[in-house]
């Protein structure tokens, strides 16, 4: 059984205008998305800003209420659960945020930040075991107990992200949604955090939903990769298959646009025209057709379904082979 199973998930935000805040339109941030995550697996999620990847991540942890669809975590549907019912589920389901400054309370010490999580779930019966727990957590993310009494502002960006990771680990989760965990960090520190996440995964058998806009980072850390465009999944497959034989023209363009350090790589650059369309008024038919280099008349009318093109490799394009 999959650890997480998302079925036809939709998250729509109303756009309100005018005198009585009438709802004029909906932003379809996540539109009919289905996928699974196996225990211990890393599923990468890439897409450009505004494609709905962060909303999808937040909806899974129920920081954003889904509009419709099912989210089966460990077999239980959490999509319609109330806050109180979510309490026990959250122990298995944690999140790491992009901005390590904004996601740590500046008035709490590291000990309070990490301890709060285990207090809520009553994981430490007394203060001695609580202290031990916090020390172990700090050590597991490469910090030590001398850091416990300090405040977040006393740490560098990479260390703050480590604190955020320790907080997520404090409740021994099975799945962590990592929302752009390295994009706010210096280049030389990114690798430390990526390695740390991989080590922790191996030790604790964690599953990750790893959200990022950097395809190279996602490919590096994930077993499978999912590409989103305008709220829809356009491609899903093993990371090597998606990067080496992308089926969808958007993925192809995305990969060719990634800057490559090696000056001798023979790459054909596909420069896409235009911008990502507004998700309030997405184009009819295939959402990618206005920018697509191979679009035909059919693409303007017919929405392509996500179909299995080769075993385990899904794409949403009429012409994908």
């Amino acid at each position: 059984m999959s650890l997480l199973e998302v079925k036809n998930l939709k998250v729509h935000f109303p756009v309100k205008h005018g005198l009585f805040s009438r709802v004029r339109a909906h932003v379809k941030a996540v539109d009919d998305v289905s996928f699974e995550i196996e225990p211990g697996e890393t599923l990468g999620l890439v897409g450009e800003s505004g494609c709905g990847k962060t909303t999808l991540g937040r909806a899974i942890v129920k920081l954003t209420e889904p509009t419709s669809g099912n989210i089966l975590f460990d077999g239980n549907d959490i999509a319609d659960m109330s806050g109180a019912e979510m309490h026990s589920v959250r122990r298995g389901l944690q999140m790491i945020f992009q901005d390590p400054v904004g996601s740590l309370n500046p008035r709490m010490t590291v000990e309070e930040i990490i301890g709060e999580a285990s207090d809520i779930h009553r994981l430490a019966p007394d203060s001695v075991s609580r202290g031990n727990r916090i020390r172990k957590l700090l050590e597991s993310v490469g910090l030590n107990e001398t850091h416990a009494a300090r405040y977040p502002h006393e740490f560098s960006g990479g260390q703050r992200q480590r604190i955020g990771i320790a907080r997520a680990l404090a409740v021994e989760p099975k799945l962590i949604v990592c929302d752009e965990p390295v994009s706010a960090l210096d280049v030389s520190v990114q690798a430390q955090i990526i390695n740390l996440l991989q080590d922790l995964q191996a030790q604790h058998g964690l599953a990750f939903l790893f959200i990022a806009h950097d395809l190279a980072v996602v490919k590096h850390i994930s077993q499978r990769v999912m590409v989103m465009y305008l709220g829809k999944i356009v491609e899903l497959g093993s990371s090597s298959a998606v990067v080496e034989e992308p089926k969808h023209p958007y993925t192809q363009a995305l990969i060719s646009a990634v800057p490559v350090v090696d000056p001798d790589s023979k790459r054909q650059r596909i420069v896409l025209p235009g911008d990502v369309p507004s998700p309030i008024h997405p184009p009819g038919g295939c959402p990618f057709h206005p920018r697509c280099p191979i679009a035909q008349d059919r693409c303007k009318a017919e929405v392509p379904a996500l179909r299995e093109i080769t075993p385990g490799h899904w794409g949403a394009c009429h012409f994908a082979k």
Partner: protein
Amino acid sequence: MANLLEIKNLQLEFGVGANAVRVVDGVSLNIAPGETVCLVGESGCGKSVTALSIARLISTPPARYVGGEILLNGRDVLKMGKNDLRNIRGGVVSYIFQEPSASLNPVFRVGRQIKESLKLHRPGIATDAEVIRLLKLVGISAPESRIQDYPFQMSGGMQQRVMIAMALASQPKLLVADEPTTALDVTIQAQILELLRELKERLGMSILLITHNLGIVGDIADKVAVMYAGQIVELAPALDLLRRPLHPYTKALMNSVPQISGGPKRLEAIGGSVPSPGNYPPGCRFFPRCPTAQPPCEKTIPELVEVEPNRWVRSLYATRLGSGNPEAKTGETESRKSAAS
């Protein structure tokens, strides 16, 4: 050919007395006409203040130029008066920045903002027609209607194109682009880089591009300077540097970034974090994080030496890193010998 820009031993401090922090320490860099130079480094390494110094955009105080000179067309920017500075800002050097939405004025239409630059520098042709021509040049479709737009009506990529149009309005000799694509998505980043490359060819201007992304370097640069903690640690032709980085920091930086074509092998992370200005180690500033550091690196300050033609490296072991240039001049011959033995 004479260089358009020569930065010589630039030293810049913030703060006074005991609190003075030297954020740029002895940076030297030349840019020839039509050349694209990339300045690569992590946040806080001094790359932006170096670039802003070219048009004296850093206010003094709080900053203080302690030494060095910035020769733009042979004249020292650091000694210029107000009128001369006005003339070179825009007239010789134009800037584009990381966040186009923060650089554009939100309450004026973009056409008017571009025209403002024209009025200052080329008053004879401060017309709608010229604004439209500039917008066409930077690849904005339907520019006739777009000049009536406010910045918020445009996407990030379009706003950056408007910024470029504004920078080009004054026909500069040098375009300084400070992380121009960092705030943009990869597909839009590819568009803007393509545009910069094309404009450079067409207009024959020089570009100084500041980035933290080594991947961009191979796409656009002729020459690269890698900065670390206020100093240039490696300076080389772009392709040579990417094919064979010499300084341990450049190597480590390249190895720590996952490559899209790379295998699943573990990343070689650089330990520790970037030292903050004012807390630089006494010897080599990369010493505490360097995987190949030797005992002398802790105390001895390395010089930037030419280890091969056009390849400069700041390391006590520079000659060993290069293919061996016996002419390499270094003030640290003694310590180098003792360390090598």
